[in-house]
């Protein structure tokens, strides 16, 4: 499938959904025909984010009209970003899902000519955190022993992940190698088709470390695969099942890698409509029902909206850019 056909289909979809925008609104403030765009194929992290918003907003009664999910795959969010900024910048009923990975790509200039300033960042409704996973019978019992082995011979430790070079999984591996004092150029990294394949390789002994996310690791563990989580990349321990997993910081390595999930709207969406969405998400995230939904989807609490989120996103993209640059990922 070529990009043009993706774009064409995307704009066709957009055209039909945007045509309904001016229909009768269920509430005076509510934009008509709410749509959540998941910039990927169904079943991924973006789909999960949209489903959480659909359920949450419906459950809390913030949206009267049912919100539809539209899939717009391409360039890890680049196609959707381009569609919103260039073609439909003023659709008040449309929110687009993003993740920390989107911000990382944005920072690396992978969204074409557009920058972080080209959309209105609306909300972050949850977060995931990087984890270091080894086999349960691995000789590495904590982060320290892994770091020592890595220091001794970087070629013996192979990192694996579902993402490719430059992705946030690769970033986590590089940060780990860097923390061990190993040249990131010497680090061995194998990209898999997905987390599941990587874990299978971990179990087959083809890789020694799997760089994943907490929610994913939780699912794997629940599924009965014997793994050991050496560290979580957050400034404090995670709740629930992860309460006994120490942070990297606790073990003397300052690696923090949150992965937020949320939404943005078009750059020309009015302040009134933007306000509506901010208020709706604020109120939704205050409800215990939403906390439960979020937990079901494996996301950890992270609530930021409006100006506060906007500032955070821009700051984060700046940090990502610096980081990517330090690893030679940015073109001069």
């Amino acid at each position, binding site marked *: 499938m070529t990009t043009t056909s993706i774009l064409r289909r995307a704009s066709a979809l957009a055209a039909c959904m945007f045509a309904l925008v001016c229909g009768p609104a269920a509430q005076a403030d509510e934009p008509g025909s709410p749509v959540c765009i998941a910039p990927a194929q169904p079943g991924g992290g973006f789909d999960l984010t949209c489903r959480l918003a659909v359920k949450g907003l419906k459950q809390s009664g913030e949206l009267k009209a049912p919100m539809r999910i539209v899939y717009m795959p391409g360039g890890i969010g680049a196609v959707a970003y381009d569609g919103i900024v260039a073609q439909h910048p003023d659709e008040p009923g449309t929110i687009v899902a993003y993740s920390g990975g989107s911000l990382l790509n944005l920072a690396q200039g992978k969204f074409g000519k557009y920058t972080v300033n080209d959309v209105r960042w609306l909300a972050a409704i949850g977060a995931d955190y990087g984890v270091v996973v080894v086999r349960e019978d691995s000789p590495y019992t904590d982060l320290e022993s892994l770091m020592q082995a890595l220091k001794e011979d970087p070629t013996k430790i192979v990192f694996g992940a579902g993402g490719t070079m430059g992705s946030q999984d690769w970033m986590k591996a590089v940060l780990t190698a860097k923390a061990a004092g190993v040249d990131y150029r010497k680090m061995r990294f194998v990209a898999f088709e997905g987390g599941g*394949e990587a874990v299978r*390789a971990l179990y087959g002994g083809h890789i020694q470390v799997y760089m994943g996310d907490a929610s994913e690791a939780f699912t794997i563990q629940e599924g009965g695969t014997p793994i050991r989580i050496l560290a979580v990349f957050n400034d404090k321990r995670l709740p629930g099942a992860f309460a006994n997993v120490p942070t990297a910081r606790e073990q003397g390595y300052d690696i923090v890698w949150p992965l937020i999930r949320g939404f943005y709207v078009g750059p020309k969406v009015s302040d009134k409509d933007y306000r509506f969405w901010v208020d709706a998400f604020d109120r939704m995230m205050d409800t215990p029902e939403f906390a439960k939904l979020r937990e079901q989807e494996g996301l950890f609490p992270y609530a930021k909206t409006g100006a506060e989120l906007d500032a955070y996103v821009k700051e984060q993209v700046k940090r990502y850019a610096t980081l990517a640059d330090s690893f030679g990922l940015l073109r001069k």
Partner: protein
Amino acid sequence: MNRPARTQRSLKTLLLGRLVPALVGVMLIGLGISNNQLRGQVDAAYDRSLAGALRAMDLNISTTSGGLSVEQPYLLFEFFQLTASNGHVYYRVATEDGLAEIGSQGLPLPDKPLISGQPQFFYADYLGERVRIAAMARPMSPPLFNNDAGRVIVQVAESLETRRDFVHSALAQSASVDTAIIVISLLVVIWSVFTALKPLERLKDDMARRTTDDLSPVRAGDVPAEVRPLIDAVNVHMARYTDQARMQRQFLDDASHQLRTPLSVLQAQINYALRESDPQEIRDALLAMQDGLDRAVRTCNQMLALARAKNPALSEAQFEAVDLDALVHSVVRGLLPAARKRGIDLGLDLPDPGETKPVTVSGLEWLLREALSNLVDNAIRYAPAGGLVTVRVTSLDDATTLAVEDNGPGMSPDDIAHAGVRFRRGAAGKNKPGAGLGLAIVDTIAKAHGARLEIDNRAPGGGLHVALVFARGEDPYP
């Protein structure tokens, strides 16, 4: 001239009008061709580096874990960045069924099926930009679970900025060089055309500056070799005119010179006659004047005949068959009184008219008559009283001869050598009346007819033998 505008086009317009567009056309075609070739070469060169990246990626693919994986050493990444120094590089490693996919999702596949192990290069659009893609398929080893015969497809793509920039800069370079060559060539062509035609311009100016009576040869100078025959022809023509003009001047000079003496003699005789009262003396004076006038008239006629014989307008085209027999009879009959007066035996020696057909030569009857009259007249004058003059026509296979013989004093070898010179009187003619034009006229007429004038002294008994020999070339009147 109905089409002066077309036929009057200058050589300069013609040359430049064809050379310049042709030159520009050829150069543009050349530029187009080199543009095409350059694109092909650049594509080939960049495709090679793309193939290198493809191979490097391929070497890092593994299916030993049971799933598709690609080890991504940093070196590979650096290698990729070198592949496209200022553009995007994409890669995709996927199973042929597309179920497992690593890297850039949905990177387009070629239209033609991939042959295992052979990279295929093609252009496609990806994420809104034009990319060049190298794609290769190969069997997976070991194969993936449930996918025994499946192949893995490796694709590496780069956006076109780098090769486009390269092509553009190379094209700009070759275009600027070509443009410079075109401009220089044009200047050389224009300069060459102008310098080549400059002598012609100079020639035109020279001719325009000439005074009306300037008939000197045209200076060829640096005129191109092709034009020189034209100038030579013009010069020959001018020389002819110069000759004619000189001849006319000469004639006028001669005429006035020759007529002055008899006229002043006449004047003296008239003065004498007017002073005389004796009728007998007056009559003698008038008779003397009649003689003088006769001579003057004869000189006039001779000079006119000479001028006519030298007329360049005479040509063989006007020639006709002249019956020598009739001509000789007619001339001799006319001069019989003069011969009889001096008691000269004027005889004829002609071929027997009964045996052969009439002897003819090709020429102008009045000119030949003039020549023969002069010869016979001369013979009558120089032969002693009661002498012998014979007019003889002989016709042989190779020549026809018209001869006049006398038994006079003959001519010295020096006089014979100068026989054709006008107004020169031989030693024998010192005390005879005449202007010295006779043999000059005969000589001129002979030349006009392509005949030879032969003058020699008859060895025994003296006397002169003068003959016009008409060589029988191709006789048009057999």
